[in-house]
Every structure is written in structure tokens, then in C-alpha cells.
């Protein structure tokens, strides 16, 4: 799925695997190991447009980027593997941890659970886009000041959720902070300091 060259190889390996195991079980195993062999569907005039891959443009951290994407590619894969914006983390890859949180048109979403092709024309903000020059975003600065991480793997996701929260609510209560960050997990258990950082950032942003 990652690129079309790989797909061609898949077919021959699949045929090989199937020839070894034979029958329905073999096909099931092959498809799970190798990826499914795609069937090409055409659409006629006036019908829905169908793509096997598509050149799309989107805005990432204020910059327009364009690339060819296959439908099975997630926004997270594009950010990390193509644009080399590796601040956005892949942890669970299934919408259960928040490590991949980015802002899509200003709203926090899990980039692992969105197809890149669906982000066509959208505005994406990642952790790399927060600072202006050497000046960190107040939320980033507050995370440093309050020592709000241990291993740091969850941090970019938490910062993006915090930025979105403070965008909507300039003076959140502790309960509102907790609710706003309830879609991000921190395995190191540093939540209390994360909440403190968000409160401090809110103060700093109000003071301007």
C-alpha cells in the first residue's frame, strides 16, 4: 500500500503463498500477511469519481504541500514519512492514545485515523508549526517550565490538544482542562504537571 512498486511485488508473493497453502485459508492468510490484492473498479461518465491514487494539496504549518497519495495512506504517515515531521507520534495507530494529535482546520484530531486523501485542501497544524522562530508557543514554554513530561512521547499530542483547548476556552478550570485533555494518554503518569502547564499557559496568554 505504501507505494505502487510494492504492490506489484505483493501479487507475485501472494500467488506463491497461495500456491503453497491452497484454498480459502491460504487466501485469508496471504491477504493478512501481504495485503489484499486490489480489484480495480471503473466509474462511468456522470458517476462518482474513483481514484487509485491522487495528487493532493494541503497546508501544513502554513506551507502549501502537494504530493501523490494512495487512499490507504493516513495523514500521520504523510506527516512523518514524507514530510519528515516526526514530532507527531505514532503509538497505537488506532485512535486510542492521542500521540498523533494534530489540528485540522483548528480542531484536534487523530492523524493516524484520517486518510491523507481526506485532508485534501485542509489546514494542518503540527507541533513543528507552533513556535514562531526561536520563540516557543506559550503552551510549549509552560510544558518546559512545569517539567510536564517524563519520556516525552505523549508530549506533542498533549501540547496540540492543549493549544486547541485554550483556543476555545481562555480560562479553563481544572475540570475543563482534564476534560479537554481526556483524549490523550500519558503512560508515565505526568498528568498533574500537564494540567499545571495548561493553567500556566492560559495565564501567560491572557497576560499576552
Amino acid at each position, binding site marked *: 500500500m505504501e507505494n505502487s512498486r510494492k504492490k506489484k511485488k505483493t501479487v507475485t508473493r501472494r500467488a506463491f503463498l497461495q500456491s503453497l497453502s491452497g484454498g480459502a485459508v491460504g487466501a485469508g492468510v496471504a491477504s493478512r500477511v501481504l495485503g489484499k490484492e486490489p480489484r480495480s473498479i471503473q466509474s462511468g461518465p456522470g458517476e462518482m469519481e474513483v481514484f487509485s491514487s491522487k495528487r493532493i494539496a494541503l497546508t501544513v504549518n502554513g506551507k502549501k504541500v502537494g504530493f501523490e497519495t494512495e487512499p490507504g495512506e493516513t495523514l500521520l504517515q504523510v506527516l512523518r514519512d514524507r514530510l519528515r515531521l516526526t514530532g507527531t507520534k505514532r503509538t497505537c495507530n488506532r485512535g486510542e*492514545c492521542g500521540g498523533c494529535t494534530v489540528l485540522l482546520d483548528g480542531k484536534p484530531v487523530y492523524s493516524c485515523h484520517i486518510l491523507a486523501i481526506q485532508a485534501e485542501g485542509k489546514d494542518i497544524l503540527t507541533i513543528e508549526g507552533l513556535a514562531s522562530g526561536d520563540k516557543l508557543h506559550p503552551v510549549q514554554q509552560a510544558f518546559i517550565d512545569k517539567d510536564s513530561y*517524563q*519520556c516525552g512521547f505523549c508530549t506533542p499530542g498533549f501540547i496540540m490538544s492543549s493549544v486547541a483547548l485554550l483556543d476555545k476556552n481562555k480560562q479553563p478550570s481544572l475540570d475543563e482542562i482534564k476534560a479537554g485533555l481526556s483524549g*490523550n494518554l500519558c503512560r*508515565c*503518569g*505526568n498528568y498533574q*504537571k500537564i494540567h499545571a502547564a495548561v493553567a500556566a499557559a492560559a495565564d501567560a496568554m491572557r497576560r499576552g
Partner: protein
Amino acid sequence: MASQIWPGAGVPGTLADLRIYSDGSVEVECGTQDIGTGTRTHIAVVAADTLGLEPQDISVKIGNSDYPWAPISGGSLTTPSVGPAVRDAALKAAEYLKGLASKKLNTPPADILLENKKLVLKTDPSKAIEIREVVRGLPRPMVFHGERSEHPSTFAFQTFGAHFAEVEVDTETGKIKVKKVVAAHDVGRVINRQTAESQVLGGIIQGLSAGLFEEKLMDPETGTMVNPNLHDYKIATALDIPEIIPIFADVVDDRLNNLGTKGLGEPPRIPSSAAIANAVYNAIGVHVREIPMTPAKVLAALKRKEAKP
């Protein structure tokens, strides 16, 4: 409430090298690693404190097995292994710097202090010379080898801690809410308050998470774990976090090692689930003897209590 003991003593023989360059910069190399516990910070703090510098003056090189030997990070042994080795190297460096300064200040090395990036005469602080000045013109970087000493042989040593938990139990649903945890720990000298607090927060949250939610569900039907993901294997979320107050005894025990410090990885994790379980008992009058204390288990415990005459 629940308490803990745990060695947290560190590993004798841990090594660290401290280098001073002729431009006055200081570097520490140690084959340890920072898994989020703050090792990098601790090394800088210990070296800087010993040499009268600021932590940001020390460049810390870790995470490479080519560097002087240090143990794995586990068993609460990183800080009490690495810290004393760095301290040892830095003490040697301090002696060397004092030796250099003694000639320039015309006074015995024992009368010199290291503070504010300077070598200062104890009796007359107006007489001082910058560390940078002293090392200027060194023909090569000076390397000081530090080593973590043996354990004392005549007495035992442990970390000590006690957690106090306040919980709310919904007796109609069996749901437990932890409201507040106060955690007191004796880990000898606290090297860095911020990172030490993080260890305590983490130990409590993981104890809360294991105590209330985390359960590896094995299935006899299929021979698999049915919940191998972060949704069905539940870990604590932001909305499960109580107020946590960490307290440190901060009693320096010089007999332990040259820093008087002990480890702080396991200690806050050891009593955390148990303190919550004991608070639950205190609230509902019946023990839930197995973690995680899920609603189903709490409801079953309450039923057991009712059934008893």
C-alpha cells in the same frame, strides 16, 4: 494508607568521566540513559553543584555504550549509581582546579571554595578567580574518572515511603474514584525536586491505573489475550487523576555513598495500589482483595459483606 521499603541502593563500580576543556567548558560522559526519569538533569546538577557551576554549563553525554560503564535503568538504581560516580569525578576535578588556583591566589587549596563559576578564597571572598581563567591555556582537556564506591558493609539500607489515599466509592455501581493521595518518601538526598516529584506522580498514577483498571484478560476459548490494545486494556485518563501531594524527607545519609542519595523508581509504585485498596476497605468495610478493583469486583465484595450476619 500503605508503606514501602525497597533497596534503591545503586550499583558499585558505575563509572563516569568528567572533562574540562581549555575554554572552560565541562562535559560528562556516562554510559547510562535517560528513559524519562531525568538522568541527564541529575548528572548536570551533581557536576554543576560540585564545581560551582550552573546545570546548563555542563554538557551531558549519555545513551552510548562506548561511554564509561553504567548499569541499566531499572530497580531504582540509576541515580544512586550514576550520581555518586559523577560526584566522584567532579570532586577530583574540583581538587585539580583548586590546585591550579592555589598557585595564582597564593594560598593552600584547602582554603579555596568553588562557587558562582569562580574559585574563591574562603576567608576573603573578594579574592577570587574565574574557573575559565584558571583553565585557560591547558595543553589538553583534563579528564577525571569517577567511580561509584562499594556499599557500606556494616548496616542495611532501604528506601522508605508511605502513601495516604482518599477515595470515594459509589456503592451502587462499584466505581471507585481516588480523590487525593499524599505520598511521603525517604530517598536520602533529593537531587532534583522537579524530576523527583514526577517519579512520585508516575508511581501513583500507575498504581491507580493498575489498582482500578488494568487487566490482561486471557481467554481459555481462544488461548489469546482478548484486550491487547489501549482501549480494552484500560489505563488511567486525565479524568481519573486525583490531587497528588509528594513530600520528601530529604534526609541525607552520608554513610550510603558520597551523595547520600537513594533511588526513586519503584518506591512510589510499591504502596500506591495498596493505599487505594486500604482506603476502599476503610470506605466500604470489606476488602477487595484483587486488583484491578473493577466495579464488578467491588459490587461482589459489597454483596459478600451483606451476606455476612
